[in-house]
């Protein structure tokens, strides 16, 4: 080798920028938090602040807004759209879109209702059949889009129209199927007893704390950087207090709604799946760089088909919850603004439309923001026109804020 003069390890232009390039998670220290507020990059915190602002505004105008009775109503109102949004988040993480979730929720709830009421199936098999149809629809749409390289926007737009037609056909001439009291109506109509509510809140807090503490202990044992114990305590404490306050408020009224528990359960389960399993990791990877992921040996085709199947399954589950709350399935089930709210929610809560960025909790938080606005405007006696315009403005505002945050993050060396 003729030239061996290699400069000593060259310094990167701006190491501090690199050090700041952590992943979007909850801030790791108070200093980090300040840094993020300064650069406008608050991640999930931003939507919590937005939610707080919405609640403060409505509470100041109408004292019934934060009453337990109304909060129970709110939780029931957001269940269906929140569940559908869980699936939408998965699709958005891929960098795709699913416009058919509204129609699919309507179709699948119609199938469940017709099987249960007109064909005498018992509720559980009917529900399983409805979800299975949803999964099959999603797998079909994901397959067609991926196999033929068609934008999912178009494939699911076709689905939006087509499945609506099938829904009308399934519902038959009367166009409405009323549910009989039973498991199907209990899903959205039952509440936990006070004691059961407390037990659930405590169990969830303990489970969360245990996972957080053992996870940290493993990292410390392996000599890796770990969040400080104070921060960990604050985080676990915040979750526990939030859970206990929620149960306390719900118990003032009718108790913890089973529907809310179903929603939170699905959100937590899918959040776990996306963050802790290989499949979840692959969803983010495909959304970030599909070609790189394919070359890394991941079966991208399968990931896409499964994600679309999951999204439509969640749409079916959301549709069933909506039917349970309405006590009926009719021709407008799954229509109206359900689809738009299911997509707007996660976007308001910070999940990117371009794939690879966001999290499943944005489904719940986004649904809460939109649901709160709708609920608050109802209480204040505003009509639909105002509701739609305000919701639209909040969506636009949230996305603009997100864009500003992104440029702030870019200036701070984060992407």
């Amino acid at each position, binding site marked *: 080798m003729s030239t061996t003069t290699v400069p000593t390890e060259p310094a990167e*232009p701006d190491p501090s920028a*690199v050090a700041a390039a*952590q992943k979007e998670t909850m801030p790791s220290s108070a200093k980090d938090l300040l840094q993020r507020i300064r650069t406008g990059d608050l991640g999930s915190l931003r939507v919590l602040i937005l939610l707080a602002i919405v609640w403060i505004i409505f509470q100041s105008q109408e004292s019934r807004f934060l009453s337990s009775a109304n909060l129970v109503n709110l939780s029931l109102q957001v269940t269906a759209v929140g569940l559908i949004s869980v699936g939408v988040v998965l699709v958005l993480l891929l960098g795709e879109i699913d416009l058919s979730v509204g129609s699919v929720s309507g179709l699948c709830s119609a199938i469940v209702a017709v099987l249960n009421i007109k064909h005498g199936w018992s509720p559980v098999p009917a529900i399983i059949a409805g979800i299975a149809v949803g999964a099959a629809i999603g797998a079909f749409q994901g397959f067609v889009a991926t196999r033929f390289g068609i934008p999912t926007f178009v494939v699911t737009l076709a689905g939006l129209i087509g499945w609506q037609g099938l829904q009308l056909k399934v519902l038959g001439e009367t166009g409405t199927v009323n549910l009989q009291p039973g498991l199907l109506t209990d899903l959205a109509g039952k509440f936990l007893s006070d004691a059961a509510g407390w037990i659930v809140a405590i169990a969830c807090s303990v489970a969360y704390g245990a996972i957080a503490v053992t996870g940290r202990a493993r990292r410390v044992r392996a000599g890796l950087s770990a969040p400080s114990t104070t921060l960990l305590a604050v985080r676990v404490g915040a979750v526990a207090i939030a859970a206990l306050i929620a149960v306390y408020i719900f118990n003032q009224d009718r108790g913890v709604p089973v529907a809310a528990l179903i929603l939170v359960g699905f959100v937590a389960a899918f959040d776990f799946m996306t963050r802790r399993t290989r499949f979840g990791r692959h969803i*983010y990877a495909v959304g970030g760089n599909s070609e*790189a992921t394919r070359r*890394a040996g991941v079966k991208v085709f399968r990931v896409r088909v499964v994600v679309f199947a999951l999204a439509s399954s969640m749409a079916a589950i959301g549709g069933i919850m909506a039917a349970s709350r309405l006590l009926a399935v009719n021709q407008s089930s799954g229509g109206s603004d359900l689809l738009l709210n299911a997509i707007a929610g996660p976007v308001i809560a910070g999940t990117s439309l371009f794939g*690879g960025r966001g999290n499943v909790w944005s489904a719940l938080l986004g649904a809460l923001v939109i649901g709160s606005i709708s609920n608050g405007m109802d209480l204040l006696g505003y009509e639909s026109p105002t509701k739609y315009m305000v919701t639209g403005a909040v969506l636009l505002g949230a996305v603009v804020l997100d864009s500003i945050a992104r440029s702030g993050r870019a200036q701070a060396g984060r*992407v």
Partner: protein
Amino acid sequence: MTDSTPLLELRGITKRFGAVRALNGVDFRVMPGEVVGLVGDNGAGKSTLVKVISGINPADDGEYLWEGQTQHVTAPPDATGLGIATVYQDLALCDNLDVVENLFLGREATVGGLLDEVTMENKANELLAELSVTTIQSVRGEVGAMSGGQRQSVAIARSLLGEPKMVILDEPTAALGVAQTAQVLALIKRLKARGLGVIVISHNLADVFQVVDRIFVMRLGAPGGEFDVATATQQEVVAAITGLAENGRAQGAMNR
């Protein structure tokens, strides 16, 4: 295997695309622990040769020997199975994932069906330390926020996770600044020190001369000459690339 057995040896490789002969009887070899610079003008057949080696476009004709054994490499997994890793020019990284996630993409460690972040993070730290990659402060930093040199380091480190015997680097310094180029060249020397065979495809002769042992020139789909960097000059290599050596105008071309 003795020291004189090449890691990779190609004999009389021919590749046609329709009527075009992209490769015409190319003999090529890489010894263990040797860094070979593959240079040539656009369309000279460098990429085609690399695609033959990595199994993307198998050869129509010729012999493919790996550690002295004849092999039939017809698809990328065949080459990977032999121990050949390729780092493409686009690096194939996911910008939204951090270093650990990128390194282990497609081969995530799991424990009880869940991702084993601790094991992966430890291995990532070890690997980067072994390669003396000191410019990456946190393996939990997002790759999208990193410089070209750091990204190249991540991509090279990832190729090493499969314990390859040979690494092919496609234009590793093409988009890098001076400091970052030095960083990547230092990394290539460490690959050599680990006993890996390395093929570096590059247009930048200055970089090639700094890091390779032998230069293999491709010209119009055929070998255009081989040079030992200890004795060759850049002018000779340029002449071989452009084909001006044949009529003695190389020097003129250089001075113009």
